[in-house]
């Protein structure tokens, strides 16, 4: 799923204009600072005869919404809010933004070229979750002979021991092109194993906060033994062979991880 966020006055008009120019399933999330939930129950849906619906509920987060949408939508457009790594257009005051990856700052909503924006969305890092990759392998040839999916998720660990100074975030950079080629090589070599049908991996880049996911490895196999073995070999090879580099920010300091482990 590709994402885009627009922040500032008139952001929803820009989002609507961009949505209009996209092919595929588009989700729009509009941020409101007021609480308007009047339902007495936790969640309320209004379903219309044609299958369309509207709803309201209590306590979700942007991350949870994006995770849900990521398996069923090609695009998620955010109006009035953003988050880490989402390409973001800021209308007006750039200081209003706390997270997100600013791709453009414009004085007003009319200055945004919505067709150029719609064209450029796919150039940015897509929003990929574990669920996205599981859906992907389930749709591959061989799925009907598969009785096992094994997955690995690597995430940002705040502490390795009680007296560790807490890790706030990790920042990853990769060698574009070569990193992808090495990952594809690992995927295809592992998928060629007897009883393994499909292997897919994804590594996020940029700043990743404490508790967030970093890397996923998903294996579709005939049986659990080769699924487990392959998922372990997959993450081990990724860590050894793929040119990706990690900088750690703790509450005390900032350092490149290879400097500490060598």
């Amino acid at each position, binding site marked *: 799923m590709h994402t885009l966020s627009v922040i500032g006055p008139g952001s929803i008009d820009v989002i609507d204009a961009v949505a209009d120019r996209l092919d595929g399933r588009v989700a729009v999330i509009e941020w409101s600072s007021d609480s308007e939930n009047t339902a007495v129950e936790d969640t309320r849906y209004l379903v219309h005869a044609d299958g369309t619906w509207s709803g309201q509920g209590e306590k979700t987060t942007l991350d949870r919404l994006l995770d849900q949408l990521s398996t069923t939508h090609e695009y998620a457009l955010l109006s009035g809010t953003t988050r880490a790594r989402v390409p973001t257009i800021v209308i007006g005051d750039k200081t209003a933004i706390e997270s997100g990856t600013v791709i453009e700052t414009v004085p007003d909503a009319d200055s945004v070229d919505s067709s150029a924006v719609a064209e450029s969305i796919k150039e940015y890092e897509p929003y990929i979750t574990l669920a996205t990759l599981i859906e992907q392998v389930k749709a591959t040839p061989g799925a009907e002979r598969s009785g096992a999916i094994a997955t690995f998720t*690597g995430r940002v660990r705040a502490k390795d021991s009680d007296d560790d100074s807490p890790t706030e975030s990790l920042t*990853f*950079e*990769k*060698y574009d*092109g*070569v990193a992808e*080629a090495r990952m594809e090589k690992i995927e295809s070599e592992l998928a060629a194993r007897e009883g393994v049908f499909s292997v897919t991996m994804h*590594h996020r880049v940029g700043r990743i906060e404490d508790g967030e996911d*970093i*890397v996923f490895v998903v294996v579709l196999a005939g049986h659990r033994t080769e699924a487990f073995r392959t998922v372990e070999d997959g*993450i081990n090879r*990724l*860590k*050894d*062979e*793929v*040119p*990706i*580099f*990690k*900088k750690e920010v703790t509450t005390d300091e900032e350092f*490149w*991880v*290879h*400097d500490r*482990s*060598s």
Partner: protein
Amino acid sequence: MQWKLFANLAEIAGERTISLAIDSDATVGDALDALLERHPSLSDEVLVADGELHDHINLLINGTNIHSLSGLETSIEPDDELALFPPVSGG
């Protein structure tokens, strides 16, 4: 040819992508000398005392490690991309 630097090497050099003009018979070693001449501070990071590359430093030419080619003697073409980076640390 073009150099790409990553992680602490890019920080030390203060740039990530560097284009250099090379002679027609140039080798990877020549391109490395030209890079270190432009950024002498990189030498301590990438070379050991006898002028050889540190074991843990990776040098790639168009995505292939020079260890599987002819090392620093590998000849290069004007449109080659060379990359220099520390041990990988993904995941």
